[in-house]
């Protein structure tokens, strides 16, 4: 069972994840239409690239944009949540060990203590995000059950991984939960709004090109994100 899950099933998961994302990226770019979008994408590669990079960069950095600066508390919570989500699974000792055992790859890792802190931070900020959804009328009105489902799906691998790593409760149960929920999360990414793991870059690049090429090429330094 364990071998099947961490063998063929894992491979299928990775294939769906990478192929799914690739297909979506290709479809997105192919669906851009200079006439319908009213952006001369090809005509101004330099302006377009500058605009895209500036648009991505300003929003990738905490407090890098007017929007982030307008909501400092949310920004802090948002960045902690996302940093934890990305850094923990990628550089966890437990994951690196598997890479080493199976393919002999030396993967960089972060200290266990930091991984624990980030995992707890992901869970705490997720709770905060859920509370925000309930508490703020302007967020509540656009929140759907699907939003909570995705939040749960995102946090479950962290919660279960934490339980397993610290051997709280039934190790076997939590370990299986961790692996399966992690796979479910990876598979969900290309098919849900979690697609934003790459969609963010595409969408920000697009609006950045729009402003770089068309709507702000007259402004010194482009649009002041």
């Amino acid at each position: 069972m364990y071998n099947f899950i961490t063998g063929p099933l894992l491979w299928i998961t990775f294939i769906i994840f990478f192929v799914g994302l690739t297909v979506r990226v290709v479809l997105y770019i192919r669906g851009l239409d200079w006439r319908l979008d009213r952006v001369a994408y090809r005509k101004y590669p330099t302006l377009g690239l500058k605009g895209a990079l500036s648009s991505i960069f300003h929003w990738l950095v905490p407090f890098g944009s007017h929007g982030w600066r307008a909501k400092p508390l949310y920004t802090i919570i948002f960045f902690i949540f996302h940093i934890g989500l990305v850094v923990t699974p990628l550089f966890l000792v437990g994951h690196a060990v598997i890479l080493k055992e199976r393919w002999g790859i030396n993967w960089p890792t972060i200290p266990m203590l930091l991984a624990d802190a980030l995992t707890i931070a992901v869970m705490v900020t997720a709770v905060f995000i859920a509370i925000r959804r309930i508490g703020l009328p302007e967020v509540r009105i656009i929140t759907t059950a699907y939003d909570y489902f995705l939040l749960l799906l995102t946090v479950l691998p962290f919660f279960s991984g934490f339980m397993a790593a610290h051997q709280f409760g039934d190790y076997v149960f939590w370990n299986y939960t961790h692996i399966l929920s992690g796979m479910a999360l990876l598979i969900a990414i290309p098919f849900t709004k979690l697609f934003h793991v790459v969609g963010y870059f595409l969408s920000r690049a697009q609006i950045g090109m729009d402003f770089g090429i068309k709507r702000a090429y007259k402004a010194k330094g482009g649009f002041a994100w």
Partner: protein
Amino acid sequence: MPEGILCNRTPINTKEQLDAVLADKGGKQYYQEMEQLEVDVEKLQKSLQDTCKSRIRTWLEMCAHCGLCADSCFFYLANKKDPQQVPSYKILTTLGKIVEKNGNVDTAHMIYCMDTAWGKCTCCNRCGSFCPYGIDMGVMFSYLRGLCFSQGFVPWEMKIGSGMHRIFRAQMDVTPEDWVETCEWMAEEQQDEWPGLEIPVDKEGADIMYTVNAREPKHYPEDIAEAAILFHLAGENWTVPSLGWEQTSLTMFAGDWEGCKLQVQSVYEAIERLKPKRVVGTECGHAHRGTVIEGPYWVGREDGRPPAPYIHYVEWLAEALRTGKIKIDPAKKLKIPVTIQDSCNYIRNHGLKDITREIMSYIVEPGYFIEMYPNKEYNFCCGGGGGLNGIGRYRQWRNVGMKVKRDQIIATGAKLVIAPCHNCWDAIRDLEEVYELGIKWSFLKPLIIKMAIIPEHLKPQEEEEEEE
């Protein structure tokens, strides 16, 4: 598929149709007919299939429902943070639903879409600059307007505006003859004060071709005279076209993309016919947006630019002041608290923020210019953009929405608001009428004329004769 006599899916293309809709004062019958207007689902599906591509579909799907766009919307703020005014909510429940149901929506939904797209959004694009994904709901509302228009669900005044452009190539019933006569009349009227002033029509190869807003020949001909005086003062070699003089685009506000193309084509044809070195447009925001920023795409110009360099009036004026073509009398600089209204259409959407500040530096005594907050790219819409000023059905909604601009202006303590945009100018005039702030508002042209130093050779000669 029942359609009304006045409210239907066919755009106004003839004078008879136009007169019939105009005769229905306030659109009473028009809106009654709309209640019965059926949605042509097949046509809507075809539109979605042909025009709703990855950008908009991804925006709708990926929206994280985070609500960060809420505070960016002046309608949301002015309506005491009514959650139904959150931009994301507004677009998801309108266009979002149409896309989700692949066009299978009913009449009531289309009327809700219309009321939201024109009555709760001015397409100012401010929300787009606050979305972490860069989802521009103004762009989507503009797209939604196009879908609504093609289905006949368009405010009465917008249907008329689109018809005007289709028939007259102008947003009002101004014929080429009316236009040329107005120019001649204005040039004549100025002769006593400005001997030799001309409004040259259809001059080929001029340095500047000037385009206007049809309201000017129709209601404010003095604006044309003022433009002529300033070009005269600056010694410009300029002209106006007899055809293709109208720069505005109510068709853009209406979502009538075919009409947009026709209108812009008329201006571009004038450029190609007269071959000016460059084109200058009047103090209007949406005219600039329509003809300079979006227009090239409507007519399919791959470079996304008009056929000749096409600048906004503020760009020409800043240049004239910078190079000394027009000199300001230092004693006549403005010495009252002044603020400037940043027009969404050429500040947020064309990056001209520094140009208007440069003009302020020439015409306002240091210490008297006060910025609104927020400003520049992050300014709030005047409250009447996107055609909202002209739509009776949403007048009360607009008046509530204007509270944000009102409070911004009050906070500056300014006595004069300079509004180099017809729509902003109107909104601020109405704002004064509704809320009585005791402020004045103005375009740039009349202010500059009052302040400019007039060289001897341009002054009337009579004085010398009297002295002799």
